[in-house]
């Protein structure tokens, strides 16, 4: 006889046959196999001796199962053994459908149990291991997983992912994600928000804005312009999980410089007149101020590059109160002083802006906002002053000479504006190259690439190409072709396809395309599911992004309105990883090695782009193809594929899949060949792309080579590119440059000490050396 059962956790519990029959009742209900008999018995409900068909049959099956266990001599069966016996009992008694339901019920229970266990394991890992040991804690390199807020963020993120995969995703999407066919990015934010946005600062600053913690007035000089720009980025970051970008940094900040100059000119004019006339401020200031405001009403203001109309009118009017010669001298003085003061203030404003973006926190304090700024095209003197000073402060580095991690700076390159000698911003292009050669930023975007140029309307900065963060690009607009602009728009969500796996599974090129089509459709459906969830969100869920009118057309909505219509301006993007490994699997060679592989690569990516365009037409939305950035994903797919298919040389034999369409990082190739091979993919990946070149040594020593590469990017049709080179720093002596095993300045090796004498000696030689903790 059976008196006890062994539970999964090992405890022994009294045996209770009703627990078994209860589970069988559920299975009968699910299969409906007893429905006819139940109905018949209900019709005879009045008759004596009636019994519940369902429970009596279930009890009989349970008894049969127990009989089997006893016959096998199992006196203390465990749960699995009991369930096996029940399955057998149902089959033996010809309840085939119910046996099937029972098996499904078992599988579902197992799945839930496993997920729960996995979640607990994950939370334990987050709690007890340091970021050094735990890959999970280093999923995103810009979050410090060891801090309290970083850990709390991770708990939330991992729990949310589990919840969504179990409860919200369609089973086919959830399964495809979990088994690594696809990757749903930012799954932890699935039901909450959209990815990113290009923030139009000019619109936001007009009449001021509200961060939710108080109203900020329209800024009145370049310092407050720059401070508010950082606050806007920070505030919007709390409403979205992706990057935050400013598409018009040069144009927007120029307005701040204009105001600063005007004020500086006025105060210096007053000072000069005081000095020349010997009169008191109270006598002069009201006169000049009144004149300036009257002139401003007629559209005449002091400008960084003096304009004749203002200068002449001012001279004429002031001459009525003061000596003409004195007035003209005062004007010259004020122009010169105001220019210098504005220049200095602008530098300080840019310095503070960069400092702020590297120190102000968002997301429960776990990381600084993911910020980007685009600039380079505005040729106004005020904008040029902004860009010059931004580049100069970037060149200097942060307080201790460190390279600033944020914002990502993107310099827009265009012929006739800044690319060639004689172009109005050519000097800034040269400076951008010099700074990038030292500090890795700015990156370069290319307005003349045909697929960027097609949207560009001179005089309309909103049509200039803007990139953000890793590479996201939003410009075309199938939903509303009259709004093909970057301002106020961004990506809604993106999901990537595991391309190498399709190649491993299918082997032949024909079958590859068939399976690719199936996967594309699956991802499109999944993006639409998520879009439906996002569409139901309300303005109040995004107090800054929507509440302050940052997102396009959100200013037309009320607090309780859903955002469904306005987010149609955003993009739904299909991404991919590992084109190189895919090509190796299909042809034996990647696109760096063989021209025919390159042709196949372009065919594959072109096919994916066609699919996106067709879906856009079919659904009236913006589907676009993304060269996925893939930070966490770089290892996830290949880990799973290695387990599933073993090590395949050139395909699964490394710890990462090659990024998007890149030629593999380990492949020896010239910078120019690499760019020429990758450029055609930029034209196809309309949701975003980037190409990198790795330079050896210190490129500041070879600026010509650096510039040559940037020019070549423009020539071959790269949309967005940057040049990598080692930027090392020794915090002890402050050296910045290439550090091998030992520091070229102080000679210490990693983690080793230097003596006080040596340090003092260095300090004499390099007076700019930063203070290091413990060093006098």
């Amino acid at each position, binding site marked *: 006889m059976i008196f006890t059962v062994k539970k999964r956790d090992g405890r022994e519990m009294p045996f209770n046959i009703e627990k078994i029959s209860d589970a069988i009742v559920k299975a009968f209900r699910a299969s409906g196999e007893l429905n006819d008999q139940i109905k018949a018995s209900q019709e005879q409900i009045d008759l004596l001796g009636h019994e519940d068909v369902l429970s009596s049959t279930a009890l009989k099956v349970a008894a049969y199962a127990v009989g089997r266990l006893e016959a096998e001599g199992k006196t203390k069966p465990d749960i699995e053994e009991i369930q096996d016996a029940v399955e057998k009992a149902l089959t033996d008694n010809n309840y085939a459908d119910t046996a099937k339901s029972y098996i499904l019920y078992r599988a579902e229970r197992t799945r839930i149990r496993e997920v729960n266990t996995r979640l607990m394991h994950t939370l334990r890992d987050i709690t007890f291991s340091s970021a050094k040991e735990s890959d999970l804690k280093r999923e995103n390199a810009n979050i410090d997983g060891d801090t309290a807020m970083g850990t709390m963020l991770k708990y939330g993120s991992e729990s949310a992912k589990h919840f969504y995969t179990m409860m919200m995703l369609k089973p086919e999407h959830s399964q495809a994600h979990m088994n690594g066919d696809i990757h749903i990015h930012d799954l932890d934010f699935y039901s909450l928000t959209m990815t990113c946005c290009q923030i139009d600062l000019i619109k936001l600053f007009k009449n001021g804005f509200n961060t939710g913690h108080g109203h900020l007035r329209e800024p009145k000089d370049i310092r407050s312009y720059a401070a508010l720009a950082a606050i806007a980025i920070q505030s919007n970051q709390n409403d979205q999980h992706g990057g935050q970008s400013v598409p018009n940094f040069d144009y927007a900040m120029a307005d701040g410089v204009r105001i600063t100059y005007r004020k500086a000119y006025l105060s210096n004019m007053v000072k000069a007149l005081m000095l020349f006339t010997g009169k008191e401020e109270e006598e002069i200031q009201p006169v000049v101020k009144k004149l300036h405001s009257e002139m401003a009403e007629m559209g005449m203001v002091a400008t960084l590059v003096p304009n004749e109309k203002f200068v002449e009118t001012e001279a004429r009017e002031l001459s009525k109160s003061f000596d003409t010669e004195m007035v003209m001298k005062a004007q010259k003085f004020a122009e010169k002083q105001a220019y210098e003061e504005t220049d200095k203030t602008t530098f300080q404003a840019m310095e503070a802006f960069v400092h702020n973006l590297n120190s102000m926190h968002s997301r429960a304090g776990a990381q600084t906002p993911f910020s980007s700024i685009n600039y380079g095209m505005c040729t106004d003197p005020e904008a040029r002053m902004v860009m010059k000073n931004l580049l100069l402060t970037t060149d200097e580095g942060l307080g201790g000479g460190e390279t600033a991690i944020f914002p990502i700076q993107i310099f827009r390159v265009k012929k006739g504006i800044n690319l060639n000698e004689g172009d109005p911003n050519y000097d800034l292009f040269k400076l951008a190259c010099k700074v990038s050669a030292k500090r890795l930023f700015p990156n370069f975007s290319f307005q003349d690439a045909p697929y960027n140029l097609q949207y560009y309307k001179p005089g309309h900065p909103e049509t200039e190409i803007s990139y953000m963060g890793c590479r996201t690009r939003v410009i075309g607009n199938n939903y509303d072709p009259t709004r093909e602009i970057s301002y106020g728009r961004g990506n809604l969500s993106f999901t990537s396809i595991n391309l190498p796996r399709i190649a491993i599974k299918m082997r032949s090129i024909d079958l590859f395309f068939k399976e690719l089509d199936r996967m594309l459709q699956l991802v499109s459906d999944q993006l639409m599911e998520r879009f439906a969830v996002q569409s139901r969100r309300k303005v109040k869920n995004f107090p800054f992004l929507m509440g302050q009118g940052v997102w396009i057309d959100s200013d037309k909505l009320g607090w309780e309105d859903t955002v469904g219509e306005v987010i149609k301006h955003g993009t739904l993007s299909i991404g991919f990883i590992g084109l190189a490994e895919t090509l190796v699997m299909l042809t034996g060679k990647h696109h760096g090695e063989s021209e025919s592989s390159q042709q196949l690569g372009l065919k594959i990516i072109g096919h994916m782009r066609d699919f996106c365009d067709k879906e856009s037409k079919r659904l009236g939305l913006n589907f676009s193809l993304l060269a996925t950035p893939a930070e966490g994903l770089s290892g996830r797919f290949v880990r799973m594929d290695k387990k599933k298919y073993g090590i395949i040389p050139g395909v699964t034999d490394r710890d990462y899949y090659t990024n998007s369409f890149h030629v593999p990082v380990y492949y020896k190739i010239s910078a120019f060949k690499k760019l020429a091979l990758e450029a055609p993919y930029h034209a196809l990946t309309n949701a975003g792309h980037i190409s990198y070149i790795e330079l050896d040594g210190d490129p500041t020593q070879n600026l010509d080579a650096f510039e040559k590469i940037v020019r070549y990017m423009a020539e071959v049709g790269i949309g967005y590119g940057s040049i990598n080179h080692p930027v090392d720093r020794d915090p002890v002596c402050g050296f910045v440059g290439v550090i091998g095993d030992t520091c070229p300045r102080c000679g210490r090796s990693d983690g080793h000490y230097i003596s006080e004498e040596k340090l003092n000696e260095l300090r004499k030689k390099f007076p700019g050396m930063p203070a290091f903790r413990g*060093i006098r």
Partner: protein
Amino acid sequence: MSDKEKSLYGEGVCFERIRRITGYLVGTVDRFNNAKRAEVNDRVKHGV
């Protein structure tokens, strides 16, 4: 602290090595996940 320790500086302080990861810069390779770390190690320089 002994006199000897007082006059030595930088023990345990590592060099910062800034690298680009997907598009963002990261101040230290320590924060990279295992896959990205492997990729950074594999990167070869491109000739000009």
